[in-house]
């Protein structure tokens, strides 16, 4: 498409070079830094410096999830075969295991996850302990247990438990397979999705409005097609979102590396059992939501003549997006609360569909054919939104000064 590459490059450069963008990005990095340092600061002031009782060849426990019941005293009561001791951070745990002070270490990274560390190739958890851990998994208190043994890695998850208990996998509640990881990933994806759509929508609306009011658009139209201009803006906006994401993730990783505090987050282990294909689907749905709604925002911006009007009009897609977002959040919070038929139906509705699908993918097993069908439909919606918006854009931009209402718009679009 003629001029598309130039529009993308120009729009992208224009946004990322803006002082407001650089300042807000720097602000986000500072926020991440603060978030990473807060636990360290709290820990620093609340740390108990009393010596940690680690007995040679005995187990240690790192309790990073105070909500559960695995405190050393309780463990000692149930598993007298081990002499339990508690450490205060991951480094102490690793040192105890590596130095041989402890036969193995159990690390409760949060209420749902346990890591087992050992350097002893011959080590195996006692049947007593293994049974308990498996029961915790089966009862959904823990989503998976990652055993990092000296020469092998093993994950105890629902599937493992089902096999160990000779139960068919089909008999397991499907959402158990995704479990708490699904809730976390789903919530995160919905938040990322809504932030991306709303911030990009605002940027695109402002850009279209500016070109319209400054009349640059007349020059643009003599140089490239309206579709190329709009598509360029949307792609540039997506690239800006990607740049922001890369900068923030990199900053997080660097900060984690230097502070050692984010290890809990990175090493949480909660995602071990999360199917990678779901990540792919979720990214696709976020991108499709982003593209479709960005086009709608651009089309809407073209119909108005000033910033105040555009803000008013922006409320309409915002309601759709927020409605879909809260619906998704509701589904993730309580999957059984919403009727399956209802969520299936809304999975086919344009613009709401990606959000509904993000929630569905993380709460229930869906047939691959249905997922692919909805992805295909969303692609069609995105193309439809692009074509419709390009038409509105071209028509309304050139009628600057004319009062445009829905009736007028409909008549013009249908050629009546």
């Amino acid at each position, binding site marked *: 498409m*003629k*001029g598309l590459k*130039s*529009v993308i490059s*120009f729009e992208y450069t*224009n946004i990322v070079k*803006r002082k407001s963008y650089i300042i807000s990005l720097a602000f986000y990095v500072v926020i991440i830094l603060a978030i990473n340092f807060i636990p360290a600061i709290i820990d620093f002031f609340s740390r108990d410096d009393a010596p940690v009782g680690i007995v040679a060849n005995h187990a240690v426990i790192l309790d990073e999830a105070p909500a559960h019941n695995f405190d050393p005293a309780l463990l000692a009561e149930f598993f007298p075969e081990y002499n339990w001791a508690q450490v205060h951070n991951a480094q102490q745990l690793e040192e105890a295991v590596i130095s041989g002070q402890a036969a193995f270490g159990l690390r409760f990274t949060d209420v749902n996850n346990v890591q087992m560390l050992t350097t002893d190739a011959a080590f195996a958890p006692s049947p007593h302990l293994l049974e308990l851990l498996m029961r915790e998994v089966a009862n959904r208190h823990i989503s998976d247990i990652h055993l990092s043994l000296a020469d092998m890695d093993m994950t105890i998850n629902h599937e493992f438990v089902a096999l160990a208990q000779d139960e068919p996998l089909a008999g397991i509640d499907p959402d158990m397979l995704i479990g708490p990881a699904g809730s976390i990933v789903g919530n995160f994806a919905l938040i990322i999705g809504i932030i991306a759509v709303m911030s990009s929508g605002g940027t695109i609306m402002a850009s279209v409005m500016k*070109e319209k009011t*400054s*009349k*640059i*658009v*007349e*020059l*643009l*139209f*003599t*140089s*490239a097609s309206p579709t190329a201009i709009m598509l360029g803006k949307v792609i540039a906006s997506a690239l800006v979102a990607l740049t922001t994401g890369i900068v923030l993730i990199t900053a997080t990783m660097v900060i984690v590396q230097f502070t050692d505090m984010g290890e809990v987050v990175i090493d949480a282990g909660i995602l071990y059992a999360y199917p990678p294909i779901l990540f792919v689907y979720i990214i696709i749905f976020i991108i499709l939501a982003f593209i479709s709604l960005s086009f709608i925002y651009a089309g809407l911006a073209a119909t108005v003549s000033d910033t105040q009007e555009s803000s008013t009009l922006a409320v309409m897609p915002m309601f759709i997006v927020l409605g879909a977002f809260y619906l998704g959040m509701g589904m993730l919070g309580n999957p059984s609360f919403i009727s399956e038929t209802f969520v299936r139906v809304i999975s086919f509705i344009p613009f709401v569909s990606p959000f509904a699908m993000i929630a569905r993918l993380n709460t229930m097993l869906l047939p691959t054919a249905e997922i692919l069908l909805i992805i295909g439909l969303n692609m069609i919606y995105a193309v439809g939104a692009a074509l419709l918006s390009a038409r509105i854009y071209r028509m309304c931009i*050139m*009628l600057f000064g*004319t009062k445009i209402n829905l009736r*007028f718009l409909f008549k013009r679009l249908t050629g009546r």
Partner: protein
Amino acid sequence: MLLEIKNINKFYGDNHVLKDVSFTASSSRTLGLLGRNGHGKTTCMKIIMGIIYGDSGEVLLNGAPLKNSGVKLGYLPEERGLYQKVQILEQMVYFGKLRGMSAAAARASAAGLLEKLGMTEYTKKKADSLSKGNQQKIQLGIALLNDPDIIILDEPFSGLDPVNSKILQNLILESVEKSKLIIFSSHQMAQVEEFCQDVCLIKHGEVKLTGNLREIKNSYPKDKILVITEAGEELKMDAPQDGDLSQIIAEFRQKGVGIESISVLKPSLLEIFLEKVGEGDEGA
């Protein structure tokens, strides 16, 4: 190159803004599009540029539709618009690239035009730091960036001081010498007379007058005569329709006023314009 605008009609809602508009323009010549504000000049230019479509009619280049003819077009819109926060050279290169130029070619062309426009020192400046007149010059530079074959300029001289106006005139004349086809609208009749070989006068969306400017002036029935009396007084009056001056001479003799000289004056474009588009017409 022959550009034919044939029977163009355009409606904005119920408002019939162009009514069967037809005229022609050819390369190495400049056509002045004249008319009062709101009478359809800009709409006509936008239709030629393909920014908007006419409801009926055709725009032909050498007998074939102009659209997709591959000919390069340059346009200076009536409304001046630039990216206010973007450097001048950067935005010129952007528009060059949009029109299919390589970045290097666009940069070279932009640098050359900035030099001709006397604006080299503004290369790295942002548009919002430039005066209105200078922004207008940049826009003309953008219009000429890809060496277009057809150049359409909507009110190119409005708001320019005489020095900048002269710079623009030179640039337009240079384009005429390079066999470009130029159409421009203007309210400044003196400039139109100076530049244009052809004119098209539009009133309320209808073409009232079109063709070669000299022929129009020659054929225009309302010549003036200039009488210089022996006392040195200059008197201007309408020439008789039959061209016979003897009756006027007789009237002067009767009043006892001696005549030094008497000459016939062709009407100015301004006079034709005022006559055709109408004094006392409120316009749109």
